C-alpha cells in the first residue's frame, strides 16, 4: 500500500512536479486553441528560454537574475511567434498531419541548434546554495518554494488576463470559433500571433524555473515532451484550466505510482516500480486517455474522425 506517513512529502512532490509542467502545458493548450494542431516544437521553448536566460545572466550580469529571466521568457515568446509566422501558418494550411510532422522537424532542429550553441553538458544558474527546509519530515528548498509561488502567480495573472481583458476575450473567441470571431471584427491573425507569443513565454518561464531549481539540461525538451503532452491531453487539449488540472493529475500519478509497494502482492519484500519507468506513467496516461476519453477531463477538444 502507499505509505501514509509521508503524505506531506507526496503533496509537496506533486506540487513541485505540477509547477514543472503547468506553465508549459498551459502554453501548449493556448497555442493549440488557436493553431489547431498539436505543436511538438512548443516544449522546446522551455530549454530555449532557460538557455537564453543563462546566457544573459552570464554576459550581462547587470540585470541580475530577474532581468535574465525576463529576457529568456521574452526570447522564448518571440521564437514561438516567429516560428508560427514563418513556418506553422503555412504548414497548418496543409493539414494537421503536415503540421505535426513539420513541428517534429522544427523541434528536432531547435534541440540540435541549442546543443550546438550551448553544448550538451548540463549547466547551472548561479544561485546561492541554501540548505533545504525540513517541514515535519518533508524536504523542500527555497528555490522550490519560489518556483511554485512564481508558477502560481503566473497562472493567476494569466487567467485574470483571460477573463477580464479584451485580449483575453478575443483569445477565447478565436479558440472557440475562429470564423465567428473574425466575422465579429477580431483580427484573427494578429490575436493568434499574440496568443502564440504568450504560449511561448509561458513555456519559457516554465523552463527557466526548472533550470533554476535543478539545472539546465539541453535535452529538457525531449524529457518534457510526453509528460507535458500527457498533462495537456488528460486535461483536454485546448482547455486552459485543463492544462493545469492535467499537470496536477500527471504529477499526482507519477508521485503516487512510484510509491506503490508492489511487493505486497508478491509478498517477498518491498518492490517498487523502477525509476526508469517514471516518465512511462505519463505515456501510459496519454494512451489510456486517447483511447477512452480523447477529449480529456475538461474539454471537447479530442476529435473523433
Amino acid at each position, binding site marked *: 500500500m502507499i505509505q501514509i506517513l509521508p503524505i506531506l512529502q507526496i503533496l509537496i512532490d506533486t506540487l513541485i512536479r505540477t509547477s514543472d509542467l503547468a506553465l508549459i502545458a498551459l502554453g501548449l493548450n493556448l497555442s493549440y486553441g488557436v493553431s489547431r494542431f498539436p505543436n511538438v516544437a512548443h516544449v522546446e521553448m522551455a530549454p530555449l528560454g532557460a538557455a537564453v536566460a543563462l546566457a544573459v545572466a552570464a554576459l550581462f550580469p547587470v540585470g541580475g537574475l530577474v532581468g535574465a529571466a525576463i529576457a529568456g521568457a521574452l526570447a522564448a515568446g518571440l521564437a514561438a511567434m516567429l516560428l508560427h509566422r514563418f513556418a506553422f501558418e503555412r504548414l497548418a494550411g496543409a493539414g494537421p498531419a503536415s503540421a505535426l510532422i513539420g513541428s517534429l522537424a522544427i523541434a528536432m532542429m531547435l534541440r540540435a541548434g541549442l546543443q550546438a550553441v550551448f553544448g550538451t553538458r548540463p549547466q547551472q544558474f548561479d544561485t546561492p546554495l541554501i540548505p533545504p527546509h525540513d517541514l515535519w519530515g518533508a524536504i523542500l528548498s527555497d528555490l522550490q518554494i519560489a518556483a511554485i509561488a512564481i508558477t502560481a502567480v503566473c497562472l493567476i495573472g494569466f487567467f485574470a488576463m483571460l477573463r477580464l481583458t479584451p485580449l483575453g*476575450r478575443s483569445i477565447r473567441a478565436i479558440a*472557440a470559433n475562429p470564423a465567428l470571431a473574425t466575422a465579429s471584427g477580431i*483580427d484573427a491573425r494578429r490575436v493568434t500571433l499574440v496568443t502564440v507569443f504568450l504560449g511561448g513565454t509561458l513555456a519559457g518561464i516554465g523552463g527557466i524555473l526548472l533550470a533554476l531549481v535543478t539545472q539546465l539540461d539541453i535535452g529538457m525538451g525531449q524529457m518534457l515532451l510526453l509528460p507535458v503532452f500527457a498533462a495537456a491531453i488528460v486535461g483536454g*487539449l485546448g482547455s486552459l484550466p485543463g492544462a493545469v488540472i492535467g499537470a496536477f493529475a500527471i504529477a499526482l500519478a507519477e508521485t503516487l505510482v512510484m510509491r506503490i509497494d508492489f511487493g505486497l502482492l508478491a509478498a517477498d519484500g518491498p518492490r517498487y516500480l523502477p525509476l526508469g519507468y517514471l516518465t512511462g506513467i505519463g505515456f501510459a496516461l496519454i494512451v489510456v486517455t486517447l483511447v477512452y476519453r480523447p477529449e480529456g477531463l475538461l474539454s*471537447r477538444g479530442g476529435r473523433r474522425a
Partner: protein
Amino acid sequence: MLSAHDVTRSFGGLTAVNHVSLEIGPREIVGLVGPNGSGKTTLLNLLSGFLAPTSGEIRFDGTAVSARRAWQPSRLGLRRSFQLPKLPARMSVLEVMLAGGRLPAGASPWRSLLTPGRVRREEAAFIGKAMGLLAEVDLAGLADHPAGGLSGGQQKLLGLAAALMDDPAVLLLDEPTAGVNPSLRRRMADHLRRIREGGTALVIVEHDMGFIGDLCDRCLALDKGAVIANCRPDELSGNQQVVEAYLGRRRPGVPLRVVAGGAVGGAVDIRTNGARA
C-alpha cells in the same frame, strides 16, 4: 423492409429526433421533408447506422441496425448518399466505383497476393458493371478522371452510381438536388425512377418540394424531430401542421443572440463584444 420503432435521438439537452416510427416497403419512393432543424438528416443518419439512437430501434430486413457496426447495413443492402459528397481527389472515378462494389478476393491482402488470377477476373467483371452504371449517368467518359475534380452535380451522380454497385434494396439520399442545376435535377429524377424500377426503394431527404412532388409515392413530414404527416405529396399543402412548421412560429421582438461555447474558457457572448483586441 426498413423500419424504425419509436426512435429518439438527443444531443445533450436537444432532442433532434422525437419518438419516430416509420416503415419503408420494397420499391417505394418516400420523401422526408421538413424545415431546417426538423431532424431529417439526423433521422437519415440513424436509419443508415451512422448514429446510434438514444432509445428505440431500427431494423433492416429483420436485422437490427447498430452504429457500432456502421459498415454493416451497407453490406446487407441499405445504402446512403451524402449531401456534400467530398469525393477523393487522388482516386479516379472508376476507382471510387470499384470501392462501392464487393470484391472479396481483391479486398483480402492474402488473396490479392496469392491468387492474382482470381483477383484479376473479379476486378474485370466489376469494371464492366461500373462502366455500365457510369454510362447511365453520363460519366463513362470521365472514368479515369480524379473523382474530387468533378463538379458538384457530377459528384452526386457518382455517389449515387457507386452506391448502386452492390444492388442495394434501399437507398437513403441526403438532399440529392442541393447545389444541382435545374437540368441536372430533371435527369436525376429520371435516374431515380429508373433505380426504383430496378428494384431499389428510395428514401429522399429534400427541400425541393417540386422534386419531391414529381417523384415520391408518399411523404413523411418532420417538425422538431417528430413525424407530423405521412401522406401523398399533393396532400401536404392541405395539412395545417405542415404549413405552420414551414412558415414558422417565431415571436417578433426577440433579439437574435449568438452564443459560442467551446473548449477555451466557456461561452463567449459575441453580441456584447464590441471592443477590438
